[in-house]
């Protein structure tokens, strides 16, 4: 009897220790991440919500709480509709042309090359991502300079006999922001897709080849099905990233000419920091947060990401 009671006590102590250990582990491993998430994600959102209901102005003074900013959004701001339209074109264009499609083409092309050549080309495509953003855009500004000394104009005028230099910053600004962002975005897709392609067991390709499958058939029936999850991830991640990033656009076109390349995130910046309408900027930014959450949830649902995150049913060794 005594022995049993002792054993029980030991067992309870063991459980208690294990519960304490679990809590300690939770704090040690997840604590820092939770603190960072709260500090840099949750608190800023709460501050943004609070500021959007004030009249915080250019001298950072709040004189009262108001719904004025939301009234302005829904009634007075005629720029919003074209800005939202442009944002859709920019995000969809960059994503569809570069971040997914071109990233995929690069991954498939460079993995089918010899290892050294493939790595070299991947390295070249990674250069824009590794360059500081200001340097990268300075190169773009030189490339598309409307003067004859601009790289594009030099090539077109000396190589193709064009009479007058082109001014792409004025005539094709949207294409420029899509291409300049796309060159950077494509490299991320390329890396992820390359890793996924490398993970496909090689014997599948050999078996397909023996069965008479050509290169395109192998890509269609082996490679692409294996890339479903990476494509879903890249699509969702890059959509969110493109929605909120504007630094390359600001550096390249300053949002112009006129408002032609002012995407939503840049519009928020221009309102808040160039005009000093901080409360209005906060209200606009709140919608960006809502749109971001909605896009993430839709993507989650559309790409069935829940299945991606399930434990594998078979242990693979």
């Amino acid at each position, binding site marked *: 009897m005594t022995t049993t009671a002792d054993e029980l006590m030991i067992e309870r102590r063991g459980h208690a220790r294990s519960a304490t250990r679990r809590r300690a582990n939770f704090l040690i491993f997840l604590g820092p991440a939770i603190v960072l998430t709260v500090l840099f994600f949750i608190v800023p959102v709460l501050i943004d919500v609070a500021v959007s209901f004030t009249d915080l102005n*250019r001298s950072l*003074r709040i004189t009262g709480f108001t719904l004025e900013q939301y009234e302005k959004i829904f009634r007075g701001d005629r720029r919003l509709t074209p800005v939202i339209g442009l944002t859709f074109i920019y995000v969809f264009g960059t994503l569809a042309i570069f971040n997914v499609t071109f990233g995929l083409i690069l991954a498939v092309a460079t993995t089918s090359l010899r290892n050294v050549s493939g790595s070299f080309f991947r390295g070249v495509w990674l250069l824009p991502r590794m360059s500081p953003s200001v340097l990268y855009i300075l190169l773009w500004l030189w490339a598309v300079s409307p*003067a004859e000394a601009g790289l594009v104009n030099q090539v077109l005028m000396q190589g193709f006999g064009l009479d007058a230099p082109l001014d792409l910053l004025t005539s094709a600004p949207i294409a420029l922001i899509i291409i300049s962002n796309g060159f950077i975005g494509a490299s991320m897709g390329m890396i992820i897709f390359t890793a996924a392609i490398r993970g496909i067991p090689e014997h599948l390709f050999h078996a397909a080849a023996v069965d008479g499958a050509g290169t395109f058939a192998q890509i269609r029936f082996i490679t692409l099905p294996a890339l479903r999850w990476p494509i879903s991830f890249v699509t969702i991640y890059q959509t969110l990233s493109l929605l909120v990033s504007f630094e390359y656009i600001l550096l390249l076109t300053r949002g112009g*000419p006129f408002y032609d390349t002012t995407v939503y995130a840049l519009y928020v910046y221009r309102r808040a920091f160039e005009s*000093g309408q901080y409360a209005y900027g906060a209200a606009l930014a709140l919608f960006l947060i809502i749109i971001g959450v909605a896009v993430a949830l839709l993507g989650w649902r559309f790409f069935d990401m829940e299945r991606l995150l399930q434990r594998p049913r078979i242990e693979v060794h």
Partner: protein
Amino acid sequence: MIHWKSGTAAALLSAILMGGSAAVFTTMPASAQETVKLELWSRQDPSGPLRAGNVVKAAERLNKELEAEGSPKRVEVAVRESPAKGFDDDALQLLKVFGIDQGPDMFIAAHEWICAFQEDGFVLKLDDYIAKYPQHFGTIFPSLWSSAKCPDGTYAIPQDAEARMFFYNKKLLREAGYDAAFVDALPERALSGDLTMDELIDIAKQVVDKTKAQYGILHRPNKGPDYIMTFNAYGNDFVDPASGNLLLERDKLAAAFGWFERGVKEGVIPANNTAMEFDAIRKEFYTGNAAFYMYGIWDLGSVAFPTYGLPKDEKGFFADWGWIAGPAAAKGGSPVSLTHPIVYAISASTKEPELAVRLLGHASAADLNTDHAVTTTHIGIKPEQLQDPRYAETWPLARATELLKITKFLPNNAQFGELNGIIYAAIQGIESGRLSADDAAEFVIDEASASLEDVVVK
């Protein structure tokens, strides 16, 4: 080994102590001196480094004065330089700094922003101080004081002035077929109201069509004051005289925007003017690739002479270069020019307002202001500067002073800086072909009505 007798030791100790005390007492006035540190906010601006530099120099003069008065206070100036690109960005930054109670004791700003600081209670009212120190402020040109006023009084001290105009390349005009008499008479015709804004476009078009020059008219590629004189030419004053609020008149706005629209349509103003770099624009004009350039007189001293080697002597300069006032909108109308004074202001929360006023008074001394004027080609603030031989030798100043007869200021309205940003966006919209002149007027009215307060629309 030395053995001191106790009496000798005591005497020696007393002597040391007495000597020490005497030394302490003789240095007493120096240790009682109180150093007052005054902070000056100034934009890093190569076109006017002495705006802040003169305040630093003025501290020496003020300290001598304080010493003569027997005051224990001595002033030390600490300059806080902001890297803002322009005075608008600088003012927005400084408003935030004041908003978090980290403002400086004194600051340098473009005059049209002063009422924005006044509206939030950040700036000291100066009327009583100005009256108290006539030796410092009594002779400043009365016209300049109006650029430092808000509805209820004076809040700043004018630091300089300048003149904005259309520079032109006479050589190109002659190459385009205009005779020398016509080319040389342009300044006079502009001042008499005989030359019109449309004729300016015609002349520029002739230059583009008949010479190798690529551009007819260039203007600044960012938000700023000079293009506002075009709006002034078409009758836009932007302030409702009855209420003092911002005023937007649709027809007059559309007429001014129409000038930019015609300029682009005729191939005279480049469609990408607002996308060009400032340095590129200067290079195009000063190297003979543009007929006209709308800017200000200080550019000669700051850039044209030192960087592009335009002749520094008056005769040599006017042989191939010149400038005209902004022409009238219609024949017989009023020509325009704009001056954009920079001002000194004092924080409402400074602990030493009296010292700050006296310091800025010394910084406004004729000789110091002339140092600034002649090195950066800005117009002085006091008539006595005209007697300074250095000022007389700097011929662009004397010649540009002719334009002061017709010059206007930007409105001293707390919201004008923001309105100017909207106007600039509309110019960009027109030149890049996104807006018509009527659309641009509508855009300015819409944007201003939505984001600014109490805008009067007619």
